């Protein structure tokens, strides 16, 4: 199970590809891509967005889904999805959100 991720060109924010080719700010709102072809499609959408100066550095990453909540598999992606573990007041973890 994968999602497509990138950083926004303008401010560098971490984003994931959601429904309707929108880039979303929270990993749990991302669209899940299952299977090689689906992931390739997602990456193609990402490449288009890169061409349109929306995002940079598009790639796919592994996730799990538990009770409808999407969680990154690798620690690196967990940290990207939340923020520096040394600065809980910064990054996405600082934004008051409910899953």
């Amino acid at each position, binding site marked *: 199970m994968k999602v497509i991720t990138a*950083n926004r*060109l*303008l*401010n*560098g*924010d*971490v984003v994931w590809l959601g429904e309707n080719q929108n880039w979303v700010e929270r990993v749990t709102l991302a669209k899940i891509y299952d299977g090689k072809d689906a992931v390739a499609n997602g990456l193609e959408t990402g490449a288009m967005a*890169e*061409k*349109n*100066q929306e995002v*940079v*550095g598009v790639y796919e990453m592994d996730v799990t889904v538990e009770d409808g909540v999407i969680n990154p*598999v*690798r*620690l*690196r992606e967990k*940290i*990207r999805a939340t*923020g*520096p*573990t*040394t*600065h809980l007041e*910064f*990054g996405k973890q600082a934004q008051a959100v409910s899953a």
Partner: protein
Amino acid sequence: MYRYDEFDASFVNQRTEQFKDQVRRRLAGELSEDEFKPLRLMNGLYLQLHAYMLRVAIPYGTLNGRQMRKLAHIARKYDKGYGHFTTRQNIQFNWPKLEDTPKILEELAEVEMHAIQTSGNCIRNVTADHFAGAAADEIADPRPYAEILRQWSSLHPEFSFLPRKFKIAITGAPNDRAAVQVHDIGLQLVRKDDGDIGFLVYVGGGLGRTPMIGRKVRDFLPEEDLLAYSEAILRVYNRYGRRDNKYKARIKILVHETGLEELKADIEAEFEKIRYGVLRLPDEEVRRIEAYFAPPPLEVGTAKSEAVEARRSSDAAFAQFLTHNLNPHRVPGYTSVTLSMKPIGGIPGDASDEQMDVIADLAEQYGHDELRISHEQNVILPHVKLDDLPALFDKLVEAEIAEGNAGLITDIIACPGMDYCALATARSIPVAQRISERFGTAERQAEIGELKIKISGCINACGHHHVGHIGILGLEKKGEEFYQVTLGGSANENASIGEIVGRGFSSEQVIDAIEKLVDTYLGLRSGNEETFLEAYRRVGEAPFKEALYGAA
């Protein structure tokens, strides 16, 4: 300190204008990311895990109060209220927006700063001893030479596309505090009996995935030959250095694969061709640059201050600070003070905007408006009157930068690691914080004595783990953070690469492992005077290995 002439100023302004236009074209879609990335990197702008990161050069780690105040302003206005001092004496901002960077560079240019050549395969910021121009053991101030090298290497057309990055470090003292032997070129100032100044030259040192100690190529390079000889080294490297594999592209690999004698002969042959040409350094030019670094007027005082001694006996924290955070000054009555950017449990090298403002004020009030950043991620006031120490200390306490731990176990170098860095394989900062908490009491730190722990979050070794007395390298194993421990490294004049002590440790285990190593040292040292490194060099790894893994 050095002031920009009109050439420097117009060069930096032109670059700022150029980058402003490049950002505009990128945002307008005229430049693709592939086209833009090398341009932004040439201006120190990286893309990290959470955001862009801007690395600003602090040439040879020297700056004044006005410049520090500008860094505080940038942290406050364009970032999240803090900056991070690096092992290359630079500062990094972790959250700038792409659209703001041209404005940031404009603001930096106002105080004669920039981010040029802080990234890319070029000659990077030249680093120097952080006690330069002040230390009692100094032969001469290394910064005029670092400045001459900076001018020579800035946008050097021949060396803008080297096989890989290139780092030069210089020390003016026999006690090497600039880690010159682990740089691509390491220079150590020497003075001959007849008074002539020159350089001992090392080539091919470096850390990263293939750590190597530099090899000596010259015992005495005359001052006038500094640029011609450096150019000869760079030319040989540029011509023969490998470009087929980025992991084998540093000059250390060339030295290793070619052999020292052959490479030395190549360098000397190239040097002979150019030594009497335009790069020969005229004496008056060296003296002209030197004048920029003329020491402030310091009145000779006495080696002991009554005010300091009175306070020492009644204030344990002050006494601890005096013991560890002062470096002998060449002028009696003065000292160089290390402001620890390593609060117990804190993030090594981070400084808030308020702290940077305080540091700027203190430099102006007590330090003749001079500041240095050390490669150990601390800030130095190089010229402080002994009598001013009690008042200075009080202000440091207020700003929470008064920890008396310079050179001790909690004075840890740590790279940003996986909390920020796109290349990292594990976190570094939290490990540093936990070690700092474990050993953080004043008594325990003092009992352990000098012990340099250095932590990198990946094999690229920005945290200098190979030259830590105890080095910690964070890796990823089966999706988990995993830490490899090395022992016996050193970055001073007796440099050595640490050796892996055995299998690595999980994040949960690693702090206990470090404590076992420290306890083992305390149990076997010949006396309080024998440091961890000395003890390790005397007894070897066996007792440490046994403590960690049991008898073989």
